[in-house]
């Protein structure tokens, strides 16, 4: 599997994380994700995800008018989004640990419990 496939599963949480500290508009968020190391992410995917998260109620949205330039639609995280992010964070950690253990090249050893004779 390549990162594209992996990203599809975690796009939601990645986008939520990208706005957790600061609101941002579409391309802004793309930049943050790329800066964090997710080069493969397509901006259309990010925009679509923003839209979906907003529809789901995890993000707020507002338009900032600007002089001499286009209006920008900003997205920010709300309480529901924060809760979702926290939950996803836990799930991700557990999942990551599980996958890492599974992918471990060393042969699995029998786990000894306390009290068990060797």
């Amino acid at each position, binding site marked *: 599997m390549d990162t594209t496939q992996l990203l599809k599963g975690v*796009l939601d949480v990645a986008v939520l994380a990208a706005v957790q500290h600061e609101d941002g*508009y*579409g*391309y802004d968020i*793309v930049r943050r994700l790329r800066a964090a190391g997710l080069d493969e992410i*397509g*901006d*259309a*995917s*990010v*925009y*679509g*995800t923003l*839209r*979906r998260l907003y*529809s789901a109620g995890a993000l707020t949205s507002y338009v900032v008018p600007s002089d001499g*330039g*286009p*209006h*920008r*639609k900003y997205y920010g995280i709300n309480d529901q989004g924060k809760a979702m992010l926290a939950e996803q964070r836990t799930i991700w950690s557990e999942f990551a640990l599980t996958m890492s253990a599974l992918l471990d090249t060393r042969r699995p050893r029998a786990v000894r419990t306390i009290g068990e004779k060797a």
Partner: protein
Amino acid sequence: MTTTTTTTATTAFATAVREALSDLPPEERDDLTDGLEADLAERAAESGSDLGDPRAYADELRAAAGYPPRSARSHLGAALPDLRTLPQELRRRWNDLVARHSLIASLVAFFVALRPVWWVFRGLAVYAILMSLLGASAFGATWWPIAVAAVVLSVQLGRGRMQGRAWVRWTQRVVSGVVILVAPFLLGALATNVNLAMSAGNVDQGQTWYPSGLTRDGMPIDNIFAFDAAGQPIEQVQLFDQDGQPLDLTSDTSMEWWNAQDGSMLVPSDDVPGRAGWNVYPLAHVNDWADIEDDGQLDDSEISPTDFPFGSAKPLAGSDPAVTAQPMTPQAAPAD
């Protein structure tokens, strides 16, 4: 210069993206593409002006946003609706409409409840079409098992049994379409038949007018002149029909006179005990109008026998001309 080119390219790209999303409701499409030009401009500014394929961009955008992919478009371009997805598209729009208005939803629920009526009608309609193609009457009793079979088949198809093969569904759709097209004519024919049946039943109530009294082919008969086998006139003859009923000139036997077509007034015979002799022919006539108005009564002097149209008729084959009926004038009893 470069900025201008980039702007043109961006605008073109953005338009193409919007085009690719044209199957979505306008609100949603706008939500998705609101900051598109600006974002594209920024990206182009950072990483060069290669924007890529708008279609792919649109697909990625819609997928991330949770919308189903758009099916392959025809080569004629986005201006034409995609016929293959049109049924689904219409259905989706319809569902949206229903979801938004509870009144429409109630109406829809009502008509959905009436579907069985449609199934029965469809079965009967197919039967009627079949009968008319065969040249048989749909109302005749001979073929009713086919009517029952057609209705059962239609109902079972409507309920969703017997689905499975694609040709079954297609045949069902075609037949339903034909029935809908032909329905006005079927209903028209039905109405005509019902009307005929009802008016036939009304004959007894006098809706079709028959002249009262004796008629021949609808024309009234005023008098009857009888001749015997030898061709001699019969002065007074009593006539009865096949049921033994008197063949009265008029069914209203309480009438005192009858207006003939030639203007004369005919009266029944007095000689039938107990009733007016309207079945004794030929009927005598009143001499003068005025006599009736006089005293409302008629006596014998005011009445005269009606003349026969001719003195004698041709004798029937095999009859003896010497044998006569009672002659017009009384004569002595025949000598022994």
